[in-house]
Structure formats: C-alpha cells, structure tokens
C-alpha cells in the first residue's frame, strides 16, 4: 500500500464511514439539541441578569458581577468536570448531558450579561430622560426605548460569543455524552480506524461553517448607523 493509499484508508475509508454514519448522525442531532438548549437558556438568563442589574441595587449588583466574573474566568471543562464528578460526592448525580448543558448555559449567561449590560450603558442618558419626561416608567423606558437600541449593538459580539460557546458542546464527550465527538470517538475505537473521526470533523464543519459565516455577515450588517 502506498503512502497516499494508506492515508485514504485511514482517514477517508468510505466503508468505515458508511458503517458509522448513523451513529455520528445521531451525535449530530444530540449536538444540535444541546446547542439550542444552551443558546436559549444562556441568552435569556443573561438578559434577565442585565435587566435586574439595571435597577442599580448595590448589593444585588455585586452578586451579579461576581457570578458573571466567576463563569467568565472558569474554563468550561472545569465546570463540567466539577458538576459531573464532583456533585455525586454530595449525593447528587447528574448526567453528562445535564452537566454539559448547565455548565455552558452558565458560561453563556455570564458572557451574554456582560455584553447586554455594555449595550444598555451605551445608550445615551438623553434617551432615558426623553422617555421619562413623557411619563414613561422605568421598565417601560427600558423595554420600549433602551433595550431595542442596546440589543441592536450587542448582536455582533453576542453572535460571535454564542458560536464560540456552543462549540464547547464537544467537551461533553469527556463526560460520556454521545454528541458528535463522543459518537465518533467510540466509532473510532470500534473500527480501529480514524475515518469515523474525519466524519465527525466534517459534521462539525457542516454545522458550524454556516454559523461562522453568519457571524461574519452579522458583523457587517449590524454596524450601527444613525
């Protein structure tokens, strides 16, 4: 077998790929579900924290800032490992899926809160004053005047951050989640051939290249024009 042939046999073995395609496809589905759950929960929790923070209650805000800093500073894998291997010591067992979902949700929540908050504070004070001078209340002003402007400028950084964090779903493989990486790793050990891993890599590209391109497009499209 020549070098190139052996390369093809190892990494692009169509027979192996065909055999394990269903397994990796299942992993693909799991990755998508996990990613959607993380995005939905992380972004809404982050927005909730940013709104609560805008009330300006000092002690509460210190708490929010600490939680946000904590989950920005900790590597996601450390949180996953802590939840999955640590919690059983307290008598709580969580599945690998739940540990991965919760960890990445908390991380996305923290980054999203920070971005939303920067967006809210970037809206000029005059907008608040104008709205309040017409009799709108605090929450009405926040919801109708400030947030629409804040969300718009947060779209590019938020999109990029969300993409980066959802890619962390691959970390689930460490705690036995059969998402794309987990599925293709077990396929690789069954078949003693890394073609399944190639298949996994292709699955990630199919999933994330459009998303990365979307992020790039969003960055130019939502440049704030006044």
């Amino acid at each position: 077998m020549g070098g190139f042939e052996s390369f093809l046999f190892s990494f692009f073995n169509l027979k192996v790929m065909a055999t394990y395609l269903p397994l990796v496809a299942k992993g693909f589905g799991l990755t998508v579900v996990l990613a959607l759950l993380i995005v939905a929960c992380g972004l809404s929790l982050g927005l909730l924290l940013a709104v609560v923070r805008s009330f300006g209650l000092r002690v509460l805000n210190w708490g929010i800032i600490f939680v946000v800093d904590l989950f920005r500073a900790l590597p996601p894998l450390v949180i996953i490992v802590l939840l999955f291997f640590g919690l059983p010591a307290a008598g709580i067992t969580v599945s690998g899926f739940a540990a991965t979902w919760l960890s990445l949700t908390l991380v996305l929540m923290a980054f999203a809160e920070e971005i939303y908050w920067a967006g809210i504070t970037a809206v000029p004070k005059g907008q608040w004053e104008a709205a309040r001078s017409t009799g709108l209340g605090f929450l009405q002003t926040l919801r109708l005047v400030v947030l629409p402007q804040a969300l718009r400028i947060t779209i590019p950084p938020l999109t990029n951050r969300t993409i980066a964090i959802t890619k962390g779903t691959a970390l689930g493989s460490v705690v036995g989640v059969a998402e794309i990486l987990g599925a293709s790793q077990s396929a690789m050990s069954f078949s003693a051939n890394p073609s399944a891993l190639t298949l996994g890599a292709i699955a990630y590209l199919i999933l994330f290249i459009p998303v990365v391109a979307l992020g790039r497009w969003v960055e130019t499209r939502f440049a704030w024009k006044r």
Partner: protein
Amino acid sequence: MSTTPSPIIDARGLWKRFGNLAVLKGVDLSVAERELVFIIGPSGSGKSTLLRCLNRLEEPDDGSIQVDGIELLSPKTDINAARRRIGMVFQSFNLYPHMTARQNVMLALRKVLGKGKPEAGEIAARALDRVGLGDRMEHYPAQLSGGQQQRVAIARAIALEPRVMLFDEPTSALDPELVGGVLNVMRELRQDGMTMVVVSHEMAFARAAADRVVFMADGEKLEEGPPARIFGEPQHERTRAFIRQIDRH
C-alpha cells in the same frame, strides 16, 4: 403680568448640590398660566439645572415645586402621571433612533395615556402637522435634519397636551439656518396660549416673544422683569456685563 393669583409653576427655595458644588442656592420661580418665561445667564449659572428640576429629571436637595397644583417632590406623587403634563424639549433632541417620527410621537400616547393605535396615530399626525412635518412622518431621525428632529421632539411633547412646556437650549445644537424653523414653532405655541419656560441664548427671540426674563448667575436669581427692562436697563452689574457680551455677537 406675573401677579396671577395661582401660578401654574411655583418653585420655592430650590437647592441642588453636586458634591461640594452648590448649583442652585435657594431659587424661587413662579410662572403664570400662558406666560413665556426666558431664563438667561452665563454657563454654569444653574439655569439648565433649574429647568430639569421642574420635572424632576434632577432631584432637588431642598425646596418645593408645585406644577398645576401637584406637589412634584412629594413621595406620594405619581411622577409619571405628573410628567406627562410637563412637556420637555432637549438640546440634543433625544429622539428614539429606532422609531420613525410618528412612532416617536405615538409611544407615550399609547403606553402612558393608553390610547389605541389608530387614535394615537391620528394624534401624532396632527402634532407633526402642527410643527410642519406632516410629510416626514415615516422618516427615521437619521433621515431628518437637526431642525426637523427638534420639531419632531416638540411634537412628541405637545401631543400629550401638556399644561407646561420646558425648553432646554432647544436651538443650541442647530446650524444657524435651521434655528428659524424651530423658533417659528415655538412662536406658534405661544400664540396658542401654551405656558413655556425657555433656557436659551436666542436673545432676539426673548426680546420679541418673552413676557418675562429671569437672569441667573452662580446658582441664584439675580433679577427678573419684562424683556424691555432686563435688556434695556438692567439693574445688576453682572446682568449688564452679560448682556453687553451677548450683544457684541
């Protein structure tokens, strides 16, 4: 003129400090219904702060403010209900950039007065017509000139049918050729009998249209009176200096 028995604005003994700096030192101001009061003075005299206290965008440290019979500083007062009777126009317009001119005007009509969409839309159209922008209703602020934006801001305030209008340097951010349009709208409001308090450097407008001019310096009201007297024979040395300087321009 200012001897109407019950003034519509009655502010007494207003104090405002920013840190160690006292910006208002016990200022009184009363304004009669249908009166146009001009507040002038050098920058840092506290005139804008005084105006912003009149709808509690600035919280005075001491004193009392009554507007249309409502005790503005009382904790029992519903400040949002009170504010919709006090229109405010800002130096920097502060239009909502994500809404059209008409939506800018409609927002408080719908959310504060609880009017339905068709009715709010009609009122907004009338208000925009009144400031001469009937043909610009669906434009976004970014598509309007500064003068047009300021007229939308005036429409946004008058659509709520306020009892009083406050103007905080409404023409200072405008190019000279756009000032006239805004002043015309203010003149028409005055003719319709709107009570107005104006902080501005438009001395010619003050001379022609104001009922009373208040001169402030260093957080105090130094003198007040009809424009002819304040501009013609000011009593106070600071006033004389200020008016000399303004007239040179």
